[in-house]
């Protein structure tokens, strides 16, 4: 069985935001609203005094094994594929926002009728969305089904985003997760996320 996961190396992310642009163009997200990107790279200063560092922190839907967004969804619009990808059925979603309230990773955004009007102007006749709904990263499942990688991974200039199969012991992503070098965000909440972060520069030697 395939179990998709992503590893993001914070040491090699240069904050170019190419992942954001690639995701937006691939998935036709509402780029006119900075709160509605499916993936977002935060630009942070961490540390104190002379130890201050600039750190870029990409975030996206964590495609949890125990996704609270799915358990609270009243219509069943949020579902999980056998390969671990959590997705939203746009036609079934009524947009109550419960999934956004439940998500600990701030990975849900509302796409309104107004966004759709703007989308038709911005993306032209190729615009695919047919109904308003809550929106989220789908690990570009339409690309993954073709044997490709998510758009953000394909475009990452620093190779900081890696995508692979946790159930394949030969996959570098699975090996990195198994080694403990890549860690999930906020595991104490019990969501069992499938996006992992490498944040220790020493690990890379």
């Amino acid at each position, binding site marked *: 069985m395939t179990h998709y996961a992503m590893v993001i190396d914070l040491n090699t992310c240069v904050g170019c935001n190419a992942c954001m642009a690639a995701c937006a163009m691939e998935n036709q997200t509402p780029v006119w609203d900075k709160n509605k990107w499916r993936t977002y790279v*935060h630009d*942070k200063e961490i540390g104190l005094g002379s130890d201050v560092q600039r750190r870029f922190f990409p975030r996206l839907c964590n495609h949890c094994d125990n996704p609270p967004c799915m*358990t609270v969804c009243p219509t069943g619009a949020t579902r999980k594929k056998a390969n671990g990808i959590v997705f939203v059925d746009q036609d079934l979603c*009524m947009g109550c926002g*419960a999934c956004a309230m439940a998500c600990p990773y701030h990975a849900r955004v509302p796409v309104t009728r107004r966004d759709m009007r703007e989308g038709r102007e911005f993306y032209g006749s190729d615009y695919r969305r047919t109904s308003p*709904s809550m929106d989220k990263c789908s690990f570009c499942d339409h690309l993954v089904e073709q044997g490709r990688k998510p758009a953000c991974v394909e475009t990452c200039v620093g190779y900081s985003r890696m995508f692979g199969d946790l159930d394949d012991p030969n996959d570098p992503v699975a090996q990195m997760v198994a080694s403990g070098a890549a*860690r999930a*965000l*906020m595991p104490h*909440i019990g969501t069992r996320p499938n996006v992992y972060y490498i944040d220790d520069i020493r690990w890379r030697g």
Partner: protein
Amino acid sequence: MDVNMTYATQEMWTWWLAIYLYFGGLGAATLAVTFLTDMYLKPNRALVIWGAGAGVVLLALGSLMLFGHLLDKTAVLTVLNPMAMLNQSSAWIAWGTQFIIWMMVWGVLYALPYVRETEFPHRVPGIRDLIDKPFVIGTSKLVQRFHRSVGWLAVINGVGVAVYTGLLLQSFPAVALWHNPAVPLLFTVSAFSTAMAFLLVLMYTLLHDQADEHVRVLYERIDLVLIAAELVILFSLYQYLKNGSESAVRSLELLWNDYGWLIGFIGFGLILPFLLELKGVMRGWGSRVPILTAAVLVLAGGYLLRHYFMYAGVYAYPW
């Protein structure tokens, strides 16, 4: 992980959802209390009609607040189907929608025989035509035959609505303020407390019948106990937040440093009505003004509780 945490309050569910939760709890508990009163304490036609009417109207208004903010209103048909409860058994909104619908249905049915017996509806043209239709007369006779069963179906669904409002908030694991067992307890107790207050307002103003005095006294006493229970739950919640995660501590700071919460809700919405009702229960009142004041304050406090609860839910993000 070597990152800064940021703490943010949500902007998606704000005052309009607080109104939904408030009207949901208040309307459902009002209906449940009036029907139980009618079934087991004292048959009371006027109280049932007002209780059922208020319950249905409040629930409808509250549901409209939620419906108005749906992104795709046609997709709501999915949750109107009772199968949604089974297909999405972990989703409290699916349960809540069904509780609300069936509470309204059984509530209207329970009140129907009383409505037909009452003079006023027969003078209103639209309603008179409706309640005199053979189908409605037949339904009314059938309901009368199984009146208590219908009443219990309405009560069960009503209690379901009152409890669900807190369970809904508890189902969001990332917010320490909401994701704890005190919340469903707090919201349920508050729903029944505000329902008692609402019924006291009704009984001291529109339904001022001397024969109902013992019902009013009972409501006052129950409300007193409920306010005390609410204060105990709030104290437990305070202790939980004080010693909890950073998100919990931030929520505590937001709530307990806000005069609207501290003075508005706890002071004027709980402690002052508690003292007023305590005085009334222990020594009685010469006038209905103090108990009406207490009831109005409890009603306002019920909204403030939900308003500030929505506003103070703090998420912790590791970026």
